[in-house]
């Protein structure tokens, strides 16, 4: 083994730190001088530089849109657990239930600023009420709570008074049923349920009860 190889071997262990700018001055100057006059070491430095670039250049991911909401829910959940246990758990951590709730709502506001209102409305509902005796004053309801309903997809509810019949009306229904959607909505369901129960009884299949139950559950006719 030549003297040059020995030096290269010594320097090789310093090349990473050299590239990272982590060598103190006497060593840095020694390595720099060697690399300047040693082609294999220069090539090694270049390879290590490319390698460092590859690792540093690994694509980053953007956190999910609901990360802050999940975080707030975790805090709210912990506060809820602590409240159920008399608040001892959070008290041990030096925070109050009110504080946890306040943070949850603060995070909820962050979510709101990023236009994620539906999550937040749910979140705000799940956050525990602030403890009036806690170290932190009861947090004001974040603006997002009021904004949340507007951000939800406005979907008209199908009620008995105003069934959303037009959306789902089959084309082959008789005109009189289309003119009276309440008949269209209710009668076929009853008939279908009876039919299913009938098939279940006739065939003797084990799922007759299940079908029947599902039918009753779905129609409220049970």
């Amino acid at each position, binding site marked *: 083994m030549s003297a040059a190889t020995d030096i290269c071997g010594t320097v090789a*262990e310093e090349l*990473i*730190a050299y590239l*990272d700018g*982590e060598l103190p001055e006497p060593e840095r100057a020694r390595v720099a001088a060697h690399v300047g006059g040693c082609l294999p070491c220069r090539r090694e430095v270049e*390879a*290590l530089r*490319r*390698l*460092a*670039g*590859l*690792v*540093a*250049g*690994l*694509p*980053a*991911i*953007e*956190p*999910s849109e609901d*990360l*802050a909401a*999940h*975080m707030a*829910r*975790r*805090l709210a*959940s*912990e506060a809820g657990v602590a409240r159920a246990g008399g608040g001892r758990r*959070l008290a041990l*951590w*030096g*925070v109050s239930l009110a*504080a*946890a709730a*306040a*943070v949850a709502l*603060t*995070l909820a*506001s*962050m979510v709101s600023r990023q236009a994620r209102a539906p999550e937040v409305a749910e979140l705000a509902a799940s956050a525990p009420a602030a403890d009036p005796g806690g*170290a*932190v004053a009861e*947090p004001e309801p974040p603006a997002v709570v009021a904004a949340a309903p507007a951000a939800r997809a406005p979907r008209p509810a199908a009620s008995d008074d105003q069934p959303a019949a037009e959306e789902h009306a089959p084309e082959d229904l008789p005109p009189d049923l289309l003119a009276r959607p309440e008949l269209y909505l209710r009668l076929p369901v009853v008939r279908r349920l009876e039919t299913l129960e009938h098939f279940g009884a006739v065939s003797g299949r084990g799922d007759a009860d299940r079908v029947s139950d599902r039918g009753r559950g779905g129609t409220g006719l049970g």
Partner: protein
Amino acid sequence: MVRAPRNSQGIDALKSSEGPEQPPTTDPDVRLMLRLKAGDQSAFGELFEKHSRAIVNFAYHFVGSRERAEEITQDVFLQVYRAAGRYEPQARFTTWLYRVARNACLNEVRRPEYRHARRPLERETDDPGGRGEIALPDPAAPEGERALAGRQLEAKIREALAALPESQRAALLMSRTEGMSYRDVAEALACTESAVKSLVFRATAALRKALEEFL
């Protein structure tokens, strides 16, 4: 996505830190922690907003799963929140934060279900937030081929990272992807700078060997 906290070491990691440094009261994040300790709940939101993305990515590079990375991030910040009441500034906030994150990642990869449930550091196929492909081996190749080559290279890098011992992986990621100095890494890993130097060197040598064809 609510799960029981896994990182029992986190509080202690935040509470104390080795090193003779004076309290870094000039660190803005430390000031935020002190505000949180004093009851200013908005400070937690600021810390979360400022650092959650970096922790998600650190955890993602470490454990290889977006979902797990986000759960770990929640665990980490929960630890931060819990520790606020007992917080005493003894080091830079980020080094403490990464120590908690490292511990949480270690807890994750040591879970039996992690070892058996997935190939480590497999690239998520659903990655709408990814910021593109990694450096491409052949810039002259058509775009489709370059993208494919980039994905293959990225998969190879992640595979090589996953094969590293955990301490080497943590040190390398903190140094390379987070841009932390050896000193900060040492603080985060609770070891000496020379130990970090050795960890980074060994990790780099292993990656160098695994990725020889691309260098």
